[in-house]
């Protein structure tokens, strides 16, 4: 089995529109998915740090990383035979239903 990383990008503003009831439903869906699968990691709430290198000189700045509205919210590692299977697994994630992005990358070495 190969390992894949699922990177979950989402726009936090999207969630703001949900009611408490809907947020609970969403949380339950996410939890149910994790229960099925995987080793989940969440990223901290701050914008993070970015290292840019200019002319060989690294410069560390605070995030955001880009102009994109969608921020990386968390990631999972899953096992799958190949990309096709990893995609099939990721497609069942509630993130898809809530209209956000999942990036899938194979991971080498364990």
């Amino acid at each position, binding site marked *: 089995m190969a390992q894949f990383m699922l990177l979950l990008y989402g726009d936090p503003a999207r969630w703001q529109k949900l*009611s408490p009831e809907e947020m609970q439903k969403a949380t339950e869906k996410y939890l149910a998915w994790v229960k099925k699968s995987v080793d989940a990691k969440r990223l901290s709430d701050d914008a993070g740090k970015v290292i840019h290198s200019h002319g060989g000189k690294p410069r560390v700045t605070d995030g955001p990383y880009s102009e994109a509205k969608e921020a990386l919210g968390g990631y999972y590692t899953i096992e799958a035979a190949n990309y096709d299977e990893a995609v099939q697994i990721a497609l069942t994630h509630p993130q898809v239903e809530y209209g956000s992005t999942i990036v899938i990358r194979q991971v080498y070495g364990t």
Partner: protein
Amino acid sequence: MSSEAEPGAMLEHLFRHQAGRMVARLTRLLGPAYITLAEEAVQESMLRALQSWPYQGVPESPGGWLFRVAHNCAIDALRRNKIFGDKTDAIAAEISLSSKALPADPELEEQLGDDELRMIFMCCHPVIPPESSVALSLKTVGGFNVREIARAFLADEAATAQRLVRAKRLIRDKKLTLEMPRGAELQQRLDTVCEVIYFMFNEGYSALEGEALVRHDLCQEALRLGLLITSSSLATPAVHALVALMALQAARLPARTDEAGDIVLLESQDRDLWDPRLVALGFHHFERSMSGEHVSEYHVQAAIAATHARASHADSPDWPLILHLYDELISIKNSSVIALNRAVAVSKVHGTAEGLRAIEALDHNPDLRNYHLLMAVRGHFLLQLGRLNEAAHCFRSALRCRCSEPERRFLQKKLVECDPPE
């Protein structure tokens, strides 16, 4: 905050109920002029739960976690925005103290119930128009958002949002407080609160289509608010009667439509589908409503619902008693809709012709001109009397009024009955 069944499991409606009590608590600490700040802190706490629980797992006490985080968010907001000036530190200290309350502590439970009650009483202040009181109660204590409120009342979302903004402005401008009114004013306010709760319930109950779930939640929330009062020192026989009425009616919700979503009339309902827990709750409060001298509208309505619930099968309700109760109800509150219901009881006791005579008086009532149920009941009587052409005419007029899809199907079925194939 309640004890959880298993780690990782959340009680049904935990977020919604927790949102209501946290908004009430934070509003008490921040002051009613800052309801929006309280709401934002609560929303933020739920957002954080959504962003971290899927990865870290559900905390042991989810309600307690939300409670603490919402308090911290409120403190952050307080410090960020300078509105409170020198008082910032003092208020932050109070919020911080409140956040340390132990979850599931009975004393805290009691305090939170008290916060919620004060909040509803403020939402029902006479300066706030009644429709806004309902919306504001649902938003603040009920944990509903604007979209859900709009959907529940089949109203426009922007208009609902506007209504809430105006109500909050009134709270600020008129400097309303969370102090409970006293004396005669308390009784008056309690009456308004009951009206608002009953209105909320009826809105949920009368709907047969559309956002069924949200509407069902309206009934549940109305019942919850009623129970909040009956379990407080404010309980009066009339509030017990209101709770009894709502519980007995809500018990019938599952039997009211069949699998196809078609209407099942009370007399054909499968009583096994009635919720026995709610029936029991209804009778419990009905009994407790008997302690006073004063007979309210809710007492009589609850007595009618109880008479239906007591009947062992559909044919056997004590119709003479029900008719007597309707007479009493009309002497308390003379409404044309009640008179229409009374006519049905008249037909059961004295025969269809008498029932028909009882509604003739309503024919020219402007309140009922576009009320499809008047025409439907009239048509039903005429059909029973074999006056098919007139019956068909009534059902056709009923179909021209505003009614729900299941009602439309029901009326069309009735119309077919008026025209039997040769």
